[in-house]
């Protein structure tokens, strides 16, 4: 019975032309052949479909060319980044501020604002990916600017929330003492619980 049915399945999809004849003539088809046909037609027909036109070698060859370009552009970008920094932020006036997150995992950082000498110099709204990156140990350079030597008032503020949705904000002051060389300050958001995060500053 099964053998006959399989032959019929084969018959209906592979009959070369219209015939009134019954399925008897196809009874010679083996069961395995019919199902192999089904399997191959259902599952892997698509895999081999375009292989005739676009070969693996072509894909590989083009991929190598893409990698070469990536290498070239990365080298160029690296040089250009250094040139840009030298041009825009000379080391004798450079002040860079970094944000890190070391607090409770239940805390979600929404936004950050930085004031230098009573002037807003940076504002940032955080995406989920950015917060995750900070949580894993990444550090965000939120601001780079030029300042003369001496003391400068820094005010850092953040808005965040707990996982339950309770929103709150904190603000802290710090004095950035700029000397002759470049100045780096880390602004760290830290705290024991998600609802009690605060800001600490670290001179580097």
């Amino acid at each position: 019975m099964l053998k006959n049915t399989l032959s019929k399945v084969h018959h209906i999809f592979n009959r070369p032309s219209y015939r009134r004849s019954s399925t008897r003539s196809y009874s010679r088809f083996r069961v395995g052949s019919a199902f192999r046909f089904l399997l191959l037609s259902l599952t892997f027909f698509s895999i081999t479909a375009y292989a005739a036109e676009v070969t693996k070698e072509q894909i590989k060859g083009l991929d190598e060319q893409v990698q070469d370009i990536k290498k070239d552009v990365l080298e160029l970008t690296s040089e250009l980044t250094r040139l840009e920094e030298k041009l825009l932020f000379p080391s004798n006036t450079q002040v860079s501020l970094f944000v890190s997150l070391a607090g409770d995992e239940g805390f979600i950082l929404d936004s950050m604002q930085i004031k230098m000498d009573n002037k807003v110099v940076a504002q940032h709204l955080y995406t989920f990916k950015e917060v995750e990156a900070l949580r894993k140990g990444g550090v965000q350079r939120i601001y780079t600017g030029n300042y003369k030597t001496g003391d400068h008032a820094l005010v850092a503020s953040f808005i965040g929330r707990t996982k339950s949705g309770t929103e709150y904000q904190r603000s802290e002051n710090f004095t950035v003492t700029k000397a002759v060389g470049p100045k780096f300050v880390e602004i760290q958001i830290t705290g024991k619980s998600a609802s009690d995060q605060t800001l600490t500053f670290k001179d580097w």
Partner: protein
Amino acid sequence: MPFRFITFLSALLCSLSSFAASGLKDVELRDLYFGEILYYAYQDLHFDALSRLDAELSQYYEIDEAHLDPLHMHLGQAEFSVGDIELQYRMNQRAGKAIQAVLGEGIDMATRNQAALALARVFYKKNDPQSTLYALDLIRDEPEKSRYEAKYTFDVLRGKPPETFDTDVAYLRAKASIDTGQFGKAVELLQSLQKEKTLQGYVQYNLGIALIQNGREAEGLKVLDQLGLMETDDNGLLALKDKTNLKLAYHYLDEADAKRALKYFERVRLDGPYSNRALLGAGWVSVARGRYDRALVPWSMLHERAETNHSVQEVIMAVPYAYAKLGAHGKAANLYNHAMDVFAREIGSLDESIKSIRTGKFLAALLDEQSDKDKNWVVNLRELPDTPETRYILELMASHDFQESYKNYKDLAELRHHIDKWLADLRVYEEMIEIRRNYQEPLLPVVEEKFKKLDARIKLRLEQRENIATRLKNMLISPRPEYLATSAERQAMDVINALKEIMVTNPAAVDEKTRQRVKRLNGVIHWQVHSEYDQRLTDAYNNLISLDEIIKDMKIRYHSFIRTRQAATQSYEGYTIPIRQLRTRLFAAQRKLKGVMAKQGRMIETMASNELDRRRKRLEEYQIKARFALAESYDRATKAQLDAEIAKQQQALEAEQAVPAATEEIAEEEPKQELEEQVEPEADEPDQEEGGGRSSFKQQLLGQ
């Protein structure tokens, strides 16, 4: 054989889903700029992370006192990260070199081991299982010993192996063993990983396949059967479970075991990614058992689904086939007719799609910004109004080759954006430099002139200070009180000395009283200078210290001025040539990128149009078969109707003949003939009508 082929491919595809491990986790930060690199790396912004890392490393290697750069505390990690991020950015060639460099001497064992694992992953991604196993053999078993060597104080940074390190190694080794045909070894490794929660499902799947390939089919099928029953909420695992059940079902179909095949088909979820194929297969199992009515249950469900799917298109043909088998030829004919409409519509739509690809809309859709934010962008592409093609090539778009080509295309588009931005920035920088030059150049000579005068005075004062300091130092050894006499004392001493000289040269001019007075005055001054000497020396030292503080401030200002003057010059000097060179290189890269991007785009379009063309051909074949099947069903329906009519007429005739012959024989025959004459046309009439209709319909079909 097909099952083996399927399982082998499945093992390969399954292995590709291995989780990406990173050597960048759990890093204690010693350099803020390295932290910034991590910030981008953790967001999968590989280009940003790599360009910054390259810049930091090249800066580190250029400076004379590299140990003063905080990056030196992350150096091993940074070198390793280059390879790791490059690998994630699909720069296999460079990643392999970078990681091999880390495998060199002088690196602690834990970092070496991680580098070896990363290298093995590179090889595995390149479909080189032999080299994968070679790289895995470089891993040593005793990282603890070397990790705490005195020279590496920052052991955490030096590559503390992640908790899953051993598991990752064993799993990768098992997959590479399957690919190299070492199924026994793969089975051994996978069996040891069966309890590993992070790999739950994947280990069982690969184990089942390895067992089957190793000739232990019964055990393999048992493992797969257990996987098919696994309870989980995870979407990925649910899909894997469905896939396993589907594979098992087709395996048993291949073995002509319809009962078991049905069992596995029934396990596949109705709303999962494999449901269409399962419904189709379940129908075929019923057909195989001669239960056409039961086959219609899953097939009717499938019949209602999206007509672009392969399985649905097949079932559009299979449903009328089942109806025909059940003797409902009229219904079958209607459904074949519907099938032909569907296929004609789909072929038209495919033609539109191919045109759409040729006009570049497909590539534009692929570069849509939404695709970066939306995880299901491939599926949601169906919703785009101007890209009908995306509905047909979802399977193609999910394939590895297409994904790689697509990612390359997107990367190239991103690089193009970077190059354009830099070229625009360079123009701004040049303008900025020119403004600075115009401002600074007239000022600097005036400042320089003033500075020279001040510099001369500063040098003079510093010399004076040095003289005083030397004198005071000598006075500690040989006291010279007269050096510390006040100006009044000095004047008085000069007067006294002058008087003494007069007294010597002209003694008669000075009386005794005056002599005594001069002597007394000389004694008073001598007493004063000598008795206050210690205090005066102390005061002098204190004054020198105060002077030093002032000199220190002066030197700070002096150096600050020097730097500012240097910075002022550097703010516009020395940029012209580098900017010109960089611009030339950017233009060269832009030209090269343009060519490669065009090739990559063409390749993607070719892949898509080939897939659409293949689908089109398939639909055309279906369409032809539907025409013949329609004609057959139509004939059968007509014949059945005709047979029924004839049977009805015969029954009526027999009833007539059964009437008792009460009338005359002639009188009996005439109505009979009349009846026969009437019956024949009646019986032929519909046949003629339908026959005429059929032939015209056939002509229509053939005409199409």
